[in-house]
């Protein structure tokens, strides 16, 4: 590779930011020309020779945090240090919405403009924001605001992520968002800017004994490993180490645990194929890139019970013979990241990570990685690419992660909710676990209730609970108006009508109803809700979050948005039924021919909305 750069210099601050991430690397001392020869690694470290490209995202984050944007000089400097071509680095940086490639004010407010917040705000966060900080994207002042996809604070009804660059820098997630209150907060010294921490688990008050996965939320101190242990923490890992890796997998198999990430794949099969793979090393990745609109369950666990994730991942690593685990947390969750980071350090200092865990012949450590604003990075193979320092473009499967995953090595990957189920399984035993829920959907499920319910929040219920029962748990529809529809499963899920409240919320139950549980989203709309807005937002969401790799999704999501616009504005080309037929045709091809789940599900909710007649037109 010819590493050629523009010759534009990086500023001392930019260099410092890059070095803060990559100073761990061994690099040539002095100039290359001093030498009369070099071994691999003493020269420019090249990406194709097993370099350190995986530090690309962390280093881009460092520049973004320090400077507020990534200049040409900074990008060149980083590229040269990591041996990645500048064009490639640019391609990566421009993929993620939290990186800015043009000069941007030091403070950027990402205002949630997604389904739940739109519904709660009656569609427009813009007025309040614009009144104070100018038009969206206006970077002429000290503060700039832009719209953002779902920030995972749906239970609060409005939210914003504030990115503040400089020294010190800060990222805070605030909800509910009030422009005036935020302005006051931003007047404070930067290090005092506070996340608005909240979690709504109504069962904590009403029926704490019904909580298995959420039993420590709001009870144990999320910053103390001792508190975690005094509430049952690390019993599961201890048991795992006693029974050995094979028996851990047997317990999981007995439990019939299915992945909670959306694909509902049997966890034990995944683990087994990683464990049996002879290639080395093995990796285990916890997918904490929760980004499905309407979803906030993983955030609550990360913020309130972070040690559970560390423990769950450690067990997964143990059972599958992994040397190293990664937690990939979405960039919009600063408090979750802070708590996880703290938990990992604390666990390491207590001998619960690192070498000889619990004094056994078991070494395992965890690295925390941060996303940078890309829904698609939650797709497992896109997530691997992201960790590897690439654009988060999903890979074609096969090969599956258990064969060739992260760094092309055998990799296990589970999301947060799946991993904390493992703790429960090891505590009560796989067979006992399998008796919870339905025969084919065992255990409990986390549900994110938002929208027009009396008590929005995070709920836990055994699989098989009826949708109506779940709504009752949340106090029913909040407004005097009656229920219009429920969005089940998120933007990639589907709408169900008021006549479908008896759907059993199990994998098989929703399948029969032609719906999906997805990420456990239960977003409630009453008769007053503007469904056109919601559906248009879903169409926009997929267009903006498509990685752009494959034609059906890249162009299809754009065409879908146009069709939805024409149908809801009633500016159809030809007849309305032609347009609906075309939308259906498009949906079929996107579902059948897209590379990954994003494109395959991008039409689901919209199609269901038209079937239910939710679009006025």
């Amino acid at each position, binding site marked *: 590779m010819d590493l050629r750069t523009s010759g534009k210099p990086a500023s001392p601050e930019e260099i410092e930011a890059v070095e803060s991430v990559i100073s761990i690397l061994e690099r040539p001392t002095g100039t290359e020309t001093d030498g009369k020869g070099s071994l691999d690694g003493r020269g420019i470290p090249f990406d194709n020779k097993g370099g350190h490209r995986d530090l690309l995202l962390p280093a881009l984050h460092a520049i973004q945090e320090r400077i507020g944007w990534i200049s040409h000089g900074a990008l060149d400097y980083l590229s040269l240090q990591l041996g990645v071509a500048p*064009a*490639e680095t640019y391609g990566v940086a421009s993929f993620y919405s939290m990186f800015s490639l043009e000069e941007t004010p030091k403070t950027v407010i990402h205002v949630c403009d997604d389904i739940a917040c739109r519904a709660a705000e009656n569609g427009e966060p813009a007025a309040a924001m614009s009144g104070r900080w100018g038009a969206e*994207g206006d970077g002429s002042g000290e503060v700039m605001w832009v719209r953002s996809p779902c920030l995972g604070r749906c239970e609060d009804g409005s939210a914003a992520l504030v990115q503040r660059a400089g020294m010190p820098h800060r990222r805070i997630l605030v909800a509910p968002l009030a422009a005036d209150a935020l302005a006051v907060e931003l007047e404070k010294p930067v290090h005092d800017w506070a996340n608005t921490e909240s979690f709504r688990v109504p069962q904590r008050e009403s029926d704490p004994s019904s909580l298995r996965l959420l039993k420590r939320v709001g009870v144990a101190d999320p910053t103390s490993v001792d508190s975690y242990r005094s509430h049952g923490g690390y019993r599961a890992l201890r048991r795992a180490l006693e029974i050995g890796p094979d028996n851990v997998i047997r317990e999981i198999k007995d439990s019939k645990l299915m992945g909670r990430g959306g694909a509902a794949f049997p966890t034990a099969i995944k683990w087994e194929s990683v464990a049996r793979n002879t290639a080395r090393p093995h990796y285990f990745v916890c997918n904490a890139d929760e980004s499905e609109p309407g979803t906030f369950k993983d955030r609550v666990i990360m913020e309130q019970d972070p040690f559970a994730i560390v423990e769950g991942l450690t067990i997964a690593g143990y059972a599958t013979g992994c040397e190293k685990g990664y937690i990939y947390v979405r960039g919009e969750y600063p408090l979750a990241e802070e708590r996880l980071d703290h938990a990992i350090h604390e666990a390491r200092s207590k001998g619960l990570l690192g070498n000889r865990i619990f004094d056994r012949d078991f070494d395992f450590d965890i690295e925390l990685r941060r996303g940078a604003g890309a829904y698609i990075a939650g797709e497992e193979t896109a997530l691997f690419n992201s960790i590897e320092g690439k654009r988060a473009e999903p890979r074609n499967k096969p090969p599956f992660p258990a064969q060739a995953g992260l760094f092309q090595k055998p990799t296990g990957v589970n999301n947060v909710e799946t991993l904390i189920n493992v703790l429960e399984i090891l505590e009560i035993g796989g067979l006992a676990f399998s008796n919870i829920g339905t025969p084919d959907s065992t255990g409990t499920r986390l549900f994110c209730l938002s929208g027009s319910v009396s008590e929005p929040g995070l709920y836990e219920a055994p699989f098989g609970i009826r949708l109506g029962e779940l709504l009752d748990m949340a106090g029913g529809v909040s407004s005097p108006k009656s229920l219009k529809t429920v969005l089940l499963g998120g933007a990639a899920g589907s709408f169900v009508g008021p006549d479908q409240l008896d759907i059993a919320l199990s994998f098989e139950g929703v399948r029969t109803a032609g719906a999906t549980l997805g990420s456990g989203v239960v977003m409630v709309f009453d008769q007053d809700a503007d469904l056109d807005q919601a559906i248009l937002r879903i169409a926009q969401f997929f267009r903006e979050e498509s990685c*752009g790799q*494959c034609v059906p999704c*890249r*162009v299809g999501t754009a065409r879908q948005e146009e069709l939805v616009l024409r149908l809801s*504005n009633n500016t159809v080309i030809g007849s309305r039924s032609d347009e609906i037929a075309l939308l259906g045709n498009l949906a079929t091809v996107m579902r*059948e021919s*897209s590379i990954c789940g994003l494109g395959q599900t991008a039409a689901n909710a919209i199609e269901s909305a038209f079937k239910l007649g939710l679009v006025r037109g």
Partner: protein
Amino acid sequence: MSDSVAVSIQRSVSVTIDGIEVAAPEGSSILQTCRSQGIDIPTLCYMETLTPVNTCRLCMVEVQGSRTLVPSCSRKIEPGMVVITNSDRVSESRKMVLELLASSVDMSIVSDELAGWMELYQVDKERFGPMAAPSSLGERETMRAGHHHKSDGSKAATVFEPVKIDNDQYVRDYSRCVLCYRCVEACGTDAQNTFAIALGGRGFEAHITTEFDVPLPESACVYCGNCVAVCPTSALMFKIEHDMRQDQSWDESRQTITRTVCPYCGVGCNLEIHTQDNKIVKVTSPLDHDVTEGMLCVKGRFGFEFING
């Protein structure tokens, strides 16, 4: 031959394609297997000499047991696999994929093969409405990831933008770009290892770009033109061809293609010399020749002006 190259014994795998059982060497893709049987499968991003990226989704086929359609270019055959290449389901998908492209990209200069497929699948490029006007230069390139210009849906969004002319060797007309990734592969590890270009941006605004969209002379480009050679839609074009098309003197019916050997170094790259009116108007290299499989360097590709005089 006096060599002793160890030829690994390839096992044969039996699969059923469109109801007929066929055998093919283990490790073959579905596409290779089909083409060896004379079954036509349309492709766009696929190229024999490049790693399949399976992004265009034109070559989709049905595989029994698979919920979705399957890209035949990258899926390897497995014993007992049942493949259907000619169902309505497959045709619908191929037609739609071509229409999605044709509605957003200028596909007026494509290979005869691709033009044939577009005819076969009766591609209607206005199926999604009239096409939107071009963006201004650099507009698409600077769109922040996760944002896009909101429209009223009355026009089909396109990738149209002005042609990029920043050197005398080749031009980049990204209005014609179907984002097949071939140029990026050829510039990267599949051939040149220069990495002057990459995918930038995201979603519909994804595009091929240098870092910060700098002109090619400020980039790492070494003008091997291998990107031009692999481009299926003439988004990358010899400047001579571009200029001749502009003044309407480009006439393929008056052109001949002659195979010869590059006059520069000793590698022995084969050249296909495209001539019109006793002038060289383009240089390509045969894909099926094992010296460089279609790839050249700057001298072989563009260093012929001394002949044109």
